[in-house]
């Protein structure tokens, strides 16, 4: 247990923003129990940029889902900013995600019936901000990702890179504690991928956003401050 705590705190004395202790996840298929993550201990400091790497089936996306609060662990705890999210009810977890997590997906996951502006505005409808305050925030975020001139375009009128920029703006809009990115460049060509990675790096460096990114691309991982390797559900190098 002490070793686990050391692993979690290895980057400093202060408690990390994300503190994972003894985390396990198993899937049950009939009589079979399939372990996906085994006794994971990991800490992520505020302002960190962590790349989770590993071969397919290593459990990196599952770990990211658990950190983001969209899946529940079989055992162990995940504390984000002091809150053990594994113990939250589904409704509380939804409210927690709305406030603390920004999502960037491989396939952007924008609402096809909403414009870029409306997609970025969407998470703000869960807040008590006024229309004017929402508008100011949306325009700021769209400017940050360089898409002010495309704000009235629907996703199918945008390129893959532009759609991912909209998704990044949406992830930023609530000023979340943590940004999780699952293969954010997996659907993009190399040049566009570099632009997106540069943008994410900027978010981390200039806005001090804490980012946890899953990738299998070593070039993408180079943009992160820290690499974490998983193999067969076990942390091999953190």
């Amino acid at each position: 247990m002490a070793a686990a705590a050391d692993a979690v705190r290895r980057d400093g004395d202060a408690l990390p923003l994300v503190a994972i202790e003894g985390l396990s996840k198993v899937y049950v298929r009939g009589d079979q129990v399939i372990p996906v993550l085994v006794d994971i201990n990991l800490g992520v400091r505020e302002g960190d940029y962590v790349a989770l790497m590993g071969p397919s089936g290593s459990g990196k996306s599952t770990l990211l889902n658990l950190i983001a609060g969209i899946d529940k662990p079989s055992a162990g705890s995940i504390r984000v900013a002091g809150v053990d999210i594994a113990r939250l009810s589904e409704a509380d977890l939804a409210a927690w995600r709305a406030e603390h997590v920004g999502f960037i997906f491989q396939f952007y996951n924008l609402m096809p019936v909403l414009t870029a502006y409306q997609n970025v505005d969407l998470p703000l409808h869960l807040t008590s901000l006024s229309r004017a305050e929402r508008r100011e925030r949306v325009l700021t975020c769209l400017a940050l990702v360089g898409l002010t001139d495309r704000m009235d375009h629907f996703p199918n009128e945008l390129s893959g890179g532009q759609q991912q920029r909209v998704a990044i703006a949406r992830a930023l809009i609530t000023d979340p504690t943590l940004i999780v990115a699952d293969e954010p460049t997996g659907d993009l060509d190399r040049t566009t991928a570099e632009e997106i990675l540069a943008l994410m790096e900027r978010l981390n460096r200039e806005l001090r956003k804490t980012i946890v990114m899953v990738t299998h691309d070593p070039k993408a991982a180079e943009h992160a401050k820290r690499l974490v390797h998983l193999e067969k559900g076990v942390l091999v190098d953190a």
Partner: protein
Amino acid sequence: MFALLVLRNAFRHKLRTTLTIAGIVVAITAFGLLRTIVEAWYAGVDATSSTRLVTRNAISLVFPLPLTYAQKLRQVDGVAAVSWANWFGGVYITERNFFPQFGIDADTYLDMYPEFVIKPEERKAFLVDRNGAIAGRKLANEYGWKIGDRIPIRGTIFPGTWTFTLRAIYDGVDAKTDETQFYFHWKLLNETIKQRYPKRGDQVGVYVVEIRDPTRAAEISQSIDATFRNSLAETLTETEKAFQLGFVSMTEAILVAVQAVSFVVIVIIMAVMANTMAMTARERYAEYATMKALGFGNDYVAWLIFAESLGIALLGGALGIALTFPLAHAFAGAVGTLFPVFNVSARTLAMQVGAAALVGVVAAGVPAWRAARVRIVDGLRAVA
């Protein structure tokens, strides 16, 4: 944002949504028309008065009653007035031109039916003309009759061609009143029969008995029937409503079939709509999962589906209701006087709205439940 998402999602697949709405329009219109047919069948029942009883021969309606019963009926406690009528069953030009014709005891009969509004001068003209007749406004319009026109009717029960002069046209006091009836003097009928078949004279088809207190209808009916018990022509007395329902019950099987079809139509469109909504929701699992990941609750996602389904169903329902009126009008015109009263009632409209709402809610039930329950990680995987 909720309304925007619902609206844009609803018209995302324009062809699919248009076809679904078209299906609902057809179903709701058909439902409305079939319900109106059922109500038209009961129109005679709805137009009855609680103060009128009908006394007929206990054996069957086809057997007459003696005219002498009129005086005895007047003496029964609670009876305010007595009149009588004979079904004539004649043919105007061809058998296709069906409308009810009655020989009536004019003075007393018209007083008992205040729902027939007749101009005083026309009523007077009818009363003084032995060959005079009264027709309802709808019937007169159907055949283009005007006051003074001579109307030949070939008798089937009472042989020969009977020519009447139209002296009055009555209007219904409200939309429920039957305006397709044709009345002439019972006296003319009786005198003619007496000349041709003396033994068949002084007989009436039914007596119409007006009572003072409708709450005593059952008691007075029993008194009347007791008066004529063990006579040559025993009577059966019932309220006018029960009398009319007796006719409706003769065709009850058809009515039940029409009602069943009207509900089957709704069940079919419900299945079609449910399939559409299930398909729609399944295609959007990834979007719903994304919304949930962003912090929107399961209920929000479920309401999105419910609202979309309800919106489509109610839009189709509204168009269907709007289409019901001209179609009902055209149908009523096509069937002529077969349905004396053929109006789309407020009750039918309410049922149409209810049916459309039910289709929307039921169709969304399972898809909304599934979308609300789908795990975020599973829903997101639907993208890849």
